[in-house]
C-alpha cells in the first residue's frame, strides 16, 4: 500500500493525533486514514485490529515520507511521538522528529512476521492489565454473605405472584423445625433427611457415609474422594494440564490448532481444509452462506459454499451431492398459498409442484374457492383491527371476567388473552370459563 503523506504530526498529545489525517492512495479509491482513538487506527472502512501499525513506502517514491505510529496498550498508555521519517533508498531523514535520540529506524517489513509476534505479546500484556484492574476491584469487595444480595433475592421472589406456580398450597409449618434441626446438625443423615416430606430429596445418599467428601460433587459412585484441585470432575469436557491421574486424558479438547474458537473444537470435529471451514458452528460445518476462500479447492459433502468448484449450486433448490448434481428437493408446504410453489434447478426437468393445503395469509387471491381459506382473520385487518364475520372493525378493549382469570392456556376455546384490571392476572378475553 503506497502512501502519500499530506500532513505531519509532531505532538505526543493523543488529542492532536486524533485529528491527524493521512491520504493513502490505493488502486481503486483513495482511502483516508485517521486516528480515531488512542487505541486503534482506521483505514478506510476497515479497522486495523492491532496496536502496532507501520506504514511502509514503496521505493518508487523516494521522496515520500514514512509515518510511523507506534501505539502501545491501554495499560502503558504511552504514545511516543510520531515523527516524519524518510526511508527507502537508505537515506533516513529525521526532520520534524521531536525528542528521540539515536539512529533512525529501518523501514518495517511488509510481511509483518515480527509484527504478529509483537501484537500477540501486546495483547497478552493488555489482558494482564485488565486482570490487574479486576484484582484491585476484588481486593475491596465484600464476601457474598455481607453483600446483601441474597436477602434482596429472597425478598424479591416473594413479592410477585407467579402464574406458573400454584397459589393454593398447604404450608407445613412443622417443616421449619426440621429445617432448623438439620441446619444445626450440619450433616445430612439419610434416615432423617428422607423421612420428612418437608425436606428436600436426599441427593447422592451414597455420599453420606463418605466423611472425607465435603462437597457432593466430589463423590464418585465408589465414594472415593478426589483432589479438590481437580476441577475436571465437574466438567468432563476439558482436563486441566495439572490434573491428577483421576482425570481421563480423553476429555481434553483436540485439534486446537485449526480453530480460533473453542466452540468449534468438539471431539469429532475435523476440517479437510482449514481455510474452507470457518468454524462458525459448534458442529464445525462449512459455512454455506459465506464465500469459499481461494485456497479451498474442495469442500466436504453437502457444502455448497464452494461455488467455484460446484457451479450448479446457485439456488437453494440445488444441493451439491458428490459430483455436484442437482435435484429438486421435496416441496414444502404452501405458506403463501396463492400460487403453486415451484422448484427448478438447472438440469432438472421436473418442476416440483405442491398444492395449497393451508391458507392463512389473507389476501383476495388466497385460495379462492378453497374450503380451507378463511377470508377474514384478525391478521387481515389493517392497523391491528379485529375481524367480525367478514368485516374488520377497530378492536374493543377486552374485558376480563373475573372467574376466567388464569385459564388462558388451559382453555381450548380461548382465542385472545388480556390482563385483568383488578387482579392483574392473565385472563381470557373471550370469556372462557374453566
Amino acid at each position, binding site marked *: 500500500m503506497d502512501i502519500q503523506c499530506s500532513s505531519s504530526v509532531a505532538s505526543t498529545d493523543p488529542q492532536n493525533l486524533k485529528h491527524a489525517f493521512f491520504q493513502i492512495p490505493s488502486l481503486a479509491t483513495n482511502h483516508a486514514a485517521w486516528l480515531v482513538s488512542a*487505541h486503534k487506527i482506521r483505514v478506510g472502512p476497515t479497522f486495523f485490529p492491532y496496536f502496532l501499525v507501520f506504514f511502509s513506502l514503496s521505493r518508487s517514491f523516494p521522496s515520500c515520507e514514512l509515518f510511523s505510529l507506534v501505539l502501545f496498550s491501554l*495499560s502503558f498508555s504511552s504514545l511516543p511521538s510520531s515523527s516524519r521519517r524518510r526511508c527507502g533508498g537508505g537515506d533516513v531523514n529525521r526532520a520534524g522528529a521531536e525528542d528521540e535520540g539515536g539512529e533512525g529506524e*529501518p523501514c*518495517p517489513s511488509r510481511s509483518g512476521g515480527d509484527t504478529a*509476534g509483537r501484537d500477540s*505479546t501486546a495483547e*497478552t*500484556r493488555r*489482558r*494482564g492489565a*485488565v*486482570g490487574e484492574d*479486576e484484582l484491585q476491584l*476484588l481486593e475491596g*469487595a*465484600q*464476601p*457474598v454473605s455481607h453483600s446483601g*444480595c*441474597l436477602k*434482596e*433475592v*429472597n425478598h*424479591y*421472589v416473594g413479592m*410477585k405472584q*407467579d402464574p*406458573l406456580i*400454584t*397459589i393454593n*398450597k398447604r404450608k407445613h409449618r412443622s*417443616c*421449619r423445625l426440621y*429445617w432448623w434441626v438439620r441446619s444445626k446438625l450440619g450433616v445430612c443423615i439419610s434416615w432423617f433427611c428422607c423421612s420428612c416430606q418437608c425436606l*428436600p430429596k436426599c441427593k447422592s445418599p451414597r455420599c453420606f457415609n463418605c466423611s472425607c467428601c465435603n462437597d457432593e*460433587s466430589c463423590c464418585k459412585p465408589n465414594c472415593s474422594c478426589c483432589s479438590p484441585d481437580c476441577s475436571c470432575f465437574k466438567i*468432563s*469436557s476439558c482436563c486441566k494440564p495439572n490434573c491428577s491421574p483421576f482425570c481421563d486424558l480423553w476429555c481434553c479438547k483436540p485439534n486446537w490448532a485449526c480453530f480460533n*474458537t*473453542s466452540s468449534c473444537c468438539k471431539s469429532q470435529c475435523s476440517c479437510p481444509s482449514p481455510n474452507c471451514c470457518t468454524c*462458525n458452528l459448534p458442529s464445525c460445518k462449512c*459455512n*454455506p*452462506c459465506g464465500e469459499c476462500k481461494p485456497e479451498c479447492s474442495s469442500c466436504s459433502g453437502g457444502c455448497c459454499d464452494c461455488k467455484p468448484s460446484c457451479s450448479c449450486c446457485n439456488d437453494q433448490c440445488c444441493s451439491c451431492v458428490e459430483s455436484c448434481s442437482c435435484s429438486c428437493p421435496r416441496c*414444502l*408446504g404452501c*405458506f*403463501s*398459498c396463492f400460487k403453486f*410453489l415451484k422448484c427448478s434447478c438447472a438440469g432438472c426437468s421436473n418442476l416440483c409442484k405442491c398444492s395449497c393445503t393451508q391458507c392463512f*395469509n389473507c389476501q383476495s387471491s388466497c385460495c379462492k374457492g378453497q374450503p380451507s381459506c378463511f377470508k377474514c*382473520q384478525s*391478521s387481515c385487518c*389493517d392497523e391491528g383491527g379485529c375481524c367480525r364475520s367478514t368485516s374488520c372493525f377497530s378492536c374493543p378493549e377486552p374485558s376480563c371476567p373475573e*372467574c376466567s382469570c*388464569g*385459564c*388462558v*392456556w388451559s382453555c381450548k376455546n380461548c382465542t385472545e*388473552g388480556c390482563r385483568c384490571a383488578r387482579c392483574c392476572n392473565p385472563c381470557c378475553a373471550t370469556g372462557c370459563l374453566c
Partner: protein
Amino acid sequence: MASVADLKEKHAAATASVNSLRERLRQRRQLLLDTDVERYSKAQGRTAVSFNQTDLVCCRTLQGHSGKVYSLDWTPEKNWIVSASQDGRLIVWNALTSQKTHAIKLHCPWVMTCAFAPNGQSVACGGLDSACSIFNLNSQVDRDGNMPVSRILTGHKGYVSSCQYVPDQETRLITGSGDQTCVLWDVTTGQRISIFGGEFPSGHTADVLSLSINPLNTNMFVSGSCDTTVRLWDLRIASRAVRTYHGHEGDINSVKFFPDGQRFGTGSDDGTCRLFDMRTGHQLQVYNREPDRNDNELPIVTSIAFSISGRLLFAGYSNGDCYVWDTLLAEVVLNLGTLQNSHDGRISCLGLSSDGSALCTGSWDKNLKIWAFSGHRKIV
C-alpha cells in the same frame, strides 16, 4: 528490531504473568463466595416449590417448521411468537390459536436468532450471513409470495448469534456476533451506533453467543461468550465493559436478566446454570444437575428463562430435558422433558410470554410447544 527469539521469550513471560494473575483472581473470587442463595434460603426456612405431574402441561404444539427450530421470541403484548428454523423460514404464530400468521422465507437459510420488535410489527433475524435482516409484518408480499426485507444490517465480520430489540424502542436493536462484538444498531438508517468489544481492551475474546437487555434499565445489557465470561455493557459507553463475570467453565450459550434487573442467569456448555449479581459480580448460585448414572457427559444448557416472579428458572438441555429449577433452593422441581407430549429432541430455545403465564420451548424436533399451568386457579 527484536529477534524472533526475543519476542518468543517476552511472549512466554507475559503469558506466564497473565496465567498467574488469572489464578490469583480465581482464588480471590472463590474466597468471596462464602455462601449462596440455597444456603441462605434454607436458613430462612424456605421450602421448595412443588409441582404435581399435571400442574404444568403442554397445552399447544406449534407444528409447521420442516427443520430444527433454533430460536424463538414472544411479542411484548399479544400472544404471538416468532420462530426461526433451519428450514430457512421465520414463522409468526398466534400462540393461543396455534395458527400461523406469517411465514417468511429467508435469503440465507442458516438463521440462528430472531426477535420481535416492541410494537409487534417487525421481526429481526440473523445467522451465518453475518447480517441482521428486518421484516415488516405489514408489508405486501411479492409475486412469488415472499415478504420483502425492510432493512439489512451489515457490518459484523462473523455470524450473528443473537439479537434483541431495545425495549420500547422500535428503532434500536442489539446484536451479538461470532466476531466477538456486540453492536447497537439504528434500524431506520441501518447504521451502527456503537460497537461493544472488538479492539477495546475489555471486550470478549471469543464468539458472543447470547445477550440480554436489562428490563428495568434498558441502557444496560449483558453478553455471554465462548470465552466463558459474561460482560456487562452500558449503551452509552462502548469503549469498555462495565464488568466481567467469571465462573463458568464452558461456552455461555444463554444469558437472561433476573426480573428484578439486578441479577442475571446464565446457561453454559459446562452443564450448569448460574446466577450472578450485576453490581458486585458475585456468583450467587450454581444450578448443577446430577451426573448421569451411566457417567455420560453432562448435557449442555442451551437456553434459560426466568418466571416473572423469579422463583422458577427454566433451563433447556441438549438431551431434551427442560428442567424447572427452584431458584432459591437450587432444586429441580420438574422436568418438562419427562412429561406427556414433551419434545423428542434437543431443546434449542425457550422463552416466557410477557405476562408470565406460558413458556414456549423450541426444539430440534421441529416443533414448538407451549407449557402453562393447567390447574384451576381461583382468585380469593
